[in-house]
Structure formats: C-alpha cells, structure tokens
C-alpha cells in the first residue's frame, strides 16, 4: 500500500495511507496532514490519484510546494519523491509493502566518487534544515540581538564611539577605515574586525593588536567587554542593547 510520510529534520512525524480520497496538507486542523507552521498556508496542497497516477497540486499557497526542489503547481509523483512544504518534507512511499526504504531505489548508476557531483535534493534539504536549526540556535545567543560597539578609551581617533557593522571593520589611517586613526606613521590598516557566523573576530593588519593585554595570534573572537589595544589606541568592545 502506498503512503505519504511527513518528516521534519529527518524524523518521521506522521504516516498517511494513500487511498481513493485526496490527502490534504495545510496548517488548518481539518487537513489530513496538518503542519503547524506559519510558513504553511491553511489549505496548502493536496495529493490524489488521477488516471492511475499520483499527483500533487498546490492550492495557491503563499510559499509554494516544492517537488525535488522545484516549485510546482501540479506535478506527477513517483516513488521516492519528496514534496517540500515550508521546512517539512513529505515523502512518497509506494514500495511500502516490499519493505524497501523510500530512497533505496537507485535511479541512476552511482557516480564515481572522485568525480565532483552536486548533492541530491533529499540530502541537501536535510543538511539545510540542520544548518537552519543550528542558525536558529545561534540567533538566540544574547550577542545576536545586540549591537557591537567600540568605545575609544585612549588615543587619537576621529570619533569616540563606533558601531561595528558589516563584514569588515578596519582600524587604521585608511579612508576605508571605520575607526580612523590619526598621526603620521599610523598604518593604513593597523588591524581589522571580521564578522563571522558566530561573532566578531579581531585580526592583525600592520600591527599586532592585544586583547586584554595579550598579543593575538591569528584571528581571535571578541567577547563582550574585551579591551583592545592597537598601537597607542585603546578600545573597549561591547555589545549594547
């Protein structure tokens, strides 16, 4: 017997057998497959048999239905297909009786592994969801909600306080510098701060900066309250609300 399997982040949440009646998918509670997520429309899509073929039809949803990564309005389904709605995946399993895993059927000969290839849709989607979950976790970190700033404690600069914004913040004499240092022999790029996924990192330019009195080796992550010294300039790195 064929079935649809609702999955989220690799975990099977629900199985619905496919019969003669259409299976409805949406956020409203009266759907056969209810997905309680704001990215899903109340009545998002349905799956039904037409002339012996299984068909998915998007019900004019806001965020669309995706079949193997392609947005579809209406498409024929085959065993092993994955319908993506929001972050949820609905697998088509027509080989259920044969106790065969849905993705166990090879449709093409396995590529030689030293040949570069792009990840297939299922695997990529799984990975994206994993990364998205990790991203959501890191967004909950307190630093993400607050604005990183540099306050000048000592030294000759063009301002007393700076907001750190963007991927690259230069400390130096250069025109592109955010923290512009004055003085004849100050380098164009004394040091720089790079924004990474998980925070801000201080790196050297023409000078080796210190964090809390210790010279850095390579890129070093900045923590709230760190004292930065670049030449004769002292800066306080702080996250502000």
């Amino acid at each position, binding site marked *: 017997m064929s079935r649809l399997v609702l999955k989220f982040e690799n975990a099977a949440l629900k199985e619905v057998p496919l019969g003669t009646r259409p299976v409805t998918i949406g956020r409203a509670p009266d759907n056969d497959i209810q997905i309680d997520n704001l990215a899903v429309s109340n009545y998002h899509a349905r799956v039904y048999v037409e002339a012996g073929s299984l068909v998915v039809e998007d019900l004019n949803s806001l965020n669309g239905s995706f079949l193997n990564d392609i947005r579809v309005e209406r498409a024929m389904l085959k065993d092993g297909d994955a319908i993506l709605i929001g972050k949820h995946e609905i697998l088509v399993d027509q080989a259920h009786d044969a106790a065969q895993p849905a993705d166990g059927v090879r449709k093409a000969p396995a590529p030689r592994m030293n040949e*570069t*290839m792009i*990840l297939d849709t299922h695997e990529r989607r799984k990975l994206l969801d994993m990364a998205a979950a990790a991203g959501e976790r890191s967004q909950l970190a307190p630093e993400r909600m607050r604005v990183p700033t540099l306050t000048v404690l000592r030294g000759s600069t063009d301002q007393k306080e700076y907001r750190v914004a963007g991927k690259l913040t230069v400390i130096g004499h*250069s025109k592109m510098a955010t923290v512009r240092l004055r003085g004849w022999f100050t380098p164009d*790029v004394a040091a720089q701060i790079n924004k990474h996924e998980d925070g801000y990192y201080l790196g*050297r330019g*023409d000078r080796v900066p210190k964090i809390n009195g210790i010279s850095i080796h*390579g890129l070093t992550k900045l923590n709230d309250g760190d004292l930065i010294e670049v030449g004769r300039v002292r800066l306080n790195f702080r996250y502000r609300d």
Partner: protein
Amino acid sequence: MELPSIGVIACGFAARTARCVSQSRLLLHIQAGARTDLGRVRKNNEDFFAIDPALQLFVLSDGMGGEAHGEVASQLSVQTVLTHCRQGENSRTTPIFGEPSPDVSERTNRLASAIHLANRKVFESAASNPEQSGMGATIVAAWIEAQRLSIAHVGDSRAYLLRAGSLEQLTADHSLVAEKVRVGILTPQEADASEMQSVLTRAVGTGSSVEVDTDEQALVVGDSVLLCSDGLTRMVTDPEIASTLLTSTSAQESADRLVDLANDYGGADNVSVIVLRIDDKSESVFERLKIWKRNSG
C-alpha cells in the same frame, strides 16, 4: 600546460593600481601569478581561470559534468563574472542579480551579482542543451579596490590569505563533509578521510538560483592571496601551501611550485592556482611626501 586565461597576466598594471589608491599612504602593488594543469590522472582540464589586470579582478572555476561539459560550465561562469563586473564598472545602472547584502561594499555585492548571473547562464545553457544536463561549476573570485579585497564563492574552490606567516582560509567549502564539520557531526579528521569529499552542497548552474558567500578583507603590504581549485587542497596541506608562498620569490614562482607539489603527490585532479602578492610601491618617505602633496594640491 597552456594557460587558458582570458587576460594574460600583465606585468605592467602597477600604474593603474597606483591611481586607484592615491588617497592612501601606501601604494599597494599587486603581483599576480597563475597556472592551471591537467594533473596526472584526468584526461581533460575542466578548470578555468581569468585575470583582468585593469580591474584587479581574479576568477577561478572548477567545472563538473561529464563529456567535457564541465569545461563549458567553468568557462561560461568565469566569462560571465568578468563581463558583468566590467559592465558594472562602466555603468552604475547595470542590474544587480541576487539580493545585495547591507553587510558588504558595493564592489563585493557586484561580485556576488556576477556569480548569480553566471549561475543563471550555466543553468539556462544546461536546460536548453540536453547533453549538458547536470553540468555545473565551483567558482571563487577576488576583486581588489584600493585596500579592500572582496571575495565571493560557491563550491569547494578556496581563497586563502597569508599574513605575517600565517595562512587563513577565507572561504568555507560548500561540500557535504565541510558542512557536516561546521554543524559538528563530523570531525575535520573524519572529513579528510571521507569518500564523500567530492559531493558539493552548492554549485554554479545546477539550480535556478544559488546562494553566494562573500567576504571582505583589508590588505596590507606583505600579504599573499591564493585562489585555488580542490585539486590543490586535496593534495597539498595548508602548512605546505604556507611555506611555498613564504619561500617563493615571485607570485608566478609560488603558482608553479604549488602546481608541481600537487602533481608530485599524485595529481589526482586538475589543479589551478592564482597567487597575488601585495607589495609596497612607494618605499621612501620622500615618495610619501610627493603623494601627500599631490593629494592635497
């Protein structure tokens, strides 16, 4: 091996460089060296690179897809990036493809836009030529304006920065093993030993749209920048790359030695490198005074 570059590496592009950074105290001079090689195993070279000395734009791509279509994908990608960036320089009204990021400069956004356009071109070419179905490419591009280095990439071709003796990888590979390392379900050692290293999570031209990663760095005199295909990094370790860059006397020597190393270790894949060395053009205080006078006058 023959260089398939579009713009041949010019020695005399210091003049242009000097003009670009005249507001600055130092004149960064960019010395470029590059090479691509078949390697010892492959029958055709699917890598491709190009250098535009006037624009200080450097692009490298590694194609994939059998029957020589990898070459089509890498060449089309590189040429599209070059053309789009040139157009962007000539006319500010050149459309931007993809979503520009407020976190990076206009230049960096233009570079990302070029890769979005390349993705579209490769994807459309594959869609309209069934024999090209499934072709794609990695891409890594560097663009230097004054002291700012813009980087954009898709796939597992990398950019590195060597500063004060230490080598830093500027790009995060879009490969299955690298992404698994980043989310913490694989150790770097397991990744190095994995048979899945060739599986990319993103590539140019395999989907109707692609996510492009960007980065920016401020360059200082003495820096070296390396762009390379995975044919180098699968064969040669980071410490070996660093010591080769440090002990070469020119960018071209670095490029040649890196390719030779990859081949000495087996040359399992095509290998391509672009090496940039950032030198100081204005050496004396007298020179600096002249620049200062010119700028203030």
